[in-house]
């Protein structure tokens, strides 16, 4: 061991200690000393909870923004907003956030894993459809729609999703539940005809009903529950203080006034909150039980990851090779277009390209199922990288090879097909294989457009069971099982190339 190492470990330790002191997720007295209550929410979740202020999108607005100010005021501090992805907000507790206030529904699982405040709002689940289109009633969901199961959009990780999945599993409704990262996404997709219906909290639809004039509420709300403020179980003092603050706000009428200002039926809310029932915490599962229950789901999502990667990569290679050949040997006028194609696809994030395919194409009348959109997006994105690899590969074949082929009377295309491309393909095998491994991991981005692959499934299961570490290990093992064989193949290709050219093993 180098004599410097202990000192280095000590200094890293010091940094970690310092960081954890600075980090939020603290007990009440820390919060008060800091003068700030860090609260996590997702402004993509939308109104009326938390959303970018239309007058100044740098600021956030929403009834929960005002509620948090009131709670923080009761604690004698100010609120500081922390942006997070909605279904992963609870993970920020004890790390960078003191509490989560963002339409978090009170469930037995959350009672088990976190400290849940007394309810501050009663929500109701509302089915939405397009005007003049089926389904016309909730009861119609009991039978399949005109073209198979009804396609129903929900916010990933929300009570709407749990409720619809549970009813679907029990066979009460014939639906395909499609999870989105934002509530507005499912309204968009319902409006453009990709979805048959959506389910969300009624207050959300009431808030956006004018913007989505084509949409309507189908029947009365069919289920409901309560919003709660989440805190870490490690900060009971803070939890008690928040509970007390909510109590004060309810008794002194400030909460009712707040809801009335937001058109959220203050009086009705107060009556609902008065009679809120206790939700018992869910029981903890054993590890064996956990794995038995989650492994089939994780395996089938790993299957989706394989489908995404294996379907998109051959297309990426075919397009990439065509683009590379076009740039090197095609007509002169074509080259700038192909260069533009490559630069645009390499220069913009894959996530953005997937969004464009999935959310923008339906606006011009081109509706692609999520899986096809995902495969297409991955294929186009990777085709840009593959074309650069193939371009380098084609250039690496000595010019004498091309001249020898031409001298034999082969046309340019025959020379490419029989002499240049086969040699280039061998040259680029190692980088292409490692790109395939990278693609395997990039498939996780597809969850942004509702395709549930392994990473998404992990995050959903980890949150619903609260077993973040155990499931992470299982998921990582599954990824390894997929990428390890590829790494071996890649190494085999490399070894083969390192042997003097042409020798057969």
């Amino acid at each position, binding site marked *: 061991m180098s004599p410097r190492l202990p000192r280095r470990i000590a200094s890293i330790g010091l940094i970690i200690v310092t960081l954890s002191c600075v980090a939020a997720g603290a007990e009440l007295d820390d919060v008060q000393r800091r003068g700030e209550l860090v609260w996590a929410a997702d402004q993509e979740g939308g109104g009326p909870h938390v959303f970018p202020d239309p007058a100044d999108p740098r600021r956030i607005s929403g009834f929960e923004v005002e509620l948090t100010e009131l709670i923080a005021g009761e604690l004698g501090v100010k609120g500081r907003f922390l942006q997070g992805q909605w279904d992963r907000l609870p993970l920020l507790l004890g790390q960078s956030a003191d509490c989560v206030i963002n339409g978090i529904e009170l469930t037995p699982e959350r009672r088990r894993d976190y400290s849940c405040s007394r309810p501050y709002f009663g929500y109701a689940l509302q089915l939405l459809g397009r005007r003049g289109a089926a389904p016309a009633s909730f009861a119609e969901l009991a039978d399949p729609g005109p073209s198979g199961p009804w396609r129903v959009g929900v916010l990933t990780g929300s009570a709407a999703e749990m409720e619809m999945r549970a009813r679907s599993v029990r066979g009460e409704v014939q639906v395909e539940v499609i999870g989105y990262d934002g509530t507005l996404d499912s309204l968009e997709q319902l409006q453009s005809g990709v979805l048959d219906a959506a389910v969300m909290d009624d207050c959300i639809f009431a808030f956006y009903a004018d913007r989505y004039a084509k949409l309507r509420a189908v029947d009365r709300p069919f289920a409901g529950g309560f919003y709660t403020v989440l805190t870490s179980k490690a900060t009971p003092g803070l939890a008690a203080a928040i509970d007390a603050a909510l109590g004060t706000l309810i008794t002194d009428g400030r909460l009712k006034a707040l809801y009335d200002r937001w058109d959220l039926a203050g009086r009705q809310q107060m009556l609902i909150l008065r009679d809120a029932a206790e939700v018992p915490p869910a029981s903890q599962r054993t590890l064996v039980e956990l794995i038995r229950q989650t492994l089939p789901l994780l395996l089938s999502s790993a299957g989706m990851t394989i489908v995404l990667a294996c379907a998109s990569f051959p297309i990426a290679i075919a397009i990439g090779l065509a683009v590379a050949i076009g740039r090197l040997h095609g007509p002169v006028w074509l080259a700038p277009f192909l260069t533009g194609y490559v630069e645009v696809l390499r220069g913009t994030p894959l996530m953005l390209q997937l969004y464009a395919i999935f959310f923008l194409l339906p606006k011009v009348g081109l509706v692609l199922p999520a899986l096809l959109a995902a495969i297409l997006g991955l294929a186009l994105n990777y085709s840009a990288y593959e074309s650069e690899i193939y371009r380098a590969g084609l250039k690496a074949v*000595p010019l*004498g*090879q091309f*001249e*020898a*082929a*031409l*001298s*034999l*009377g*082969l*046309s*340019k295309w*025959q020379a490419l097909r*029989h*002499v240049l491309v*086969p*040699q280039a393909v*061998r040259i680029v095998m190692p980088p292409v294989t490692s790109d395939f491994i990278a693609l395997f991991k990039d498939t996780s981005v597809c969850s942004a457009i509702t395709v549930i692959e392994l990473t998404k499934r992990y995050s959903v299961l980890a949150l619903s069971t609260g077993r973040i570490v155990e499931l992470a290990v299982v998921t990582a093992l599954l990824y390894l099982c997929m990428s390890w064989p590829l790494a071996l193949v890649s190494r085999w290709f490399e070894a083969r190339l390192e042997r*003097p*050219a*042409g*020798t*057969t093993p």
Partner: protein
Amino acid sequence: MIQVESLTKHRSGVPVLDAVSMAGEEGGVTALVGPSGSGKSTLLRCLNGLDCFEAGAVSIAGHRLAPGSNPGGVLEALRRDVGMVFQQFNLFPHLSVLDNVTLAPRTVLKTPAAEARSRAVDLLDRVGLKSFAAARPATLSGGQQQRVAIARALAMQPRVMLFDEPTSALDPKMTAEVLDVIVDLAKAGQTMVVVTHDHGFAKRAATWVVELAAGKVARQGTAAEML
């Protein structure tokens, strides 16, 4: 069979070929000699259109090349009748020796596989390499590779064969194997143009010798007159 009329070519403003005229008759072996950089390779590459030229004309094996770039169809038709052997062999490393020889007949002439194969085996036999048909080019010696390259060009039954210093990458023993094959071809009446530094070989095989110097024809005549 071969007619070159005041061929002129520049490279980055410098004349590489300056009004070069020469001729080669059917069945004749023309040796191109001259100091390094005098334009021998460039002239040879103009004969099968691998290089283009600015002025003059080339007629070869019934095909005609004009100044500037020629249409792909003209070039392909010409190259079917004009074979070329390079100093560095340029065998296709991803194909077996046999497939190197059958590739052009099969893709260009659409010769059926079985026929192309049996003719290729005959050609490999002729250059003494029948037993290497299944080998990869990289496992062969330089002299063997160059003989495969000759067989590969012959598979198209060219009317003219062009050789660019076919033995200068080889040691004396391998040089002898390759030259023997070329001399045999000459005896069989194959029209050829050979760029060479080897005066012994030129004396032995050439019917006509053209000497280039600085892109111009310095002298030409029979081998006996010239060397």
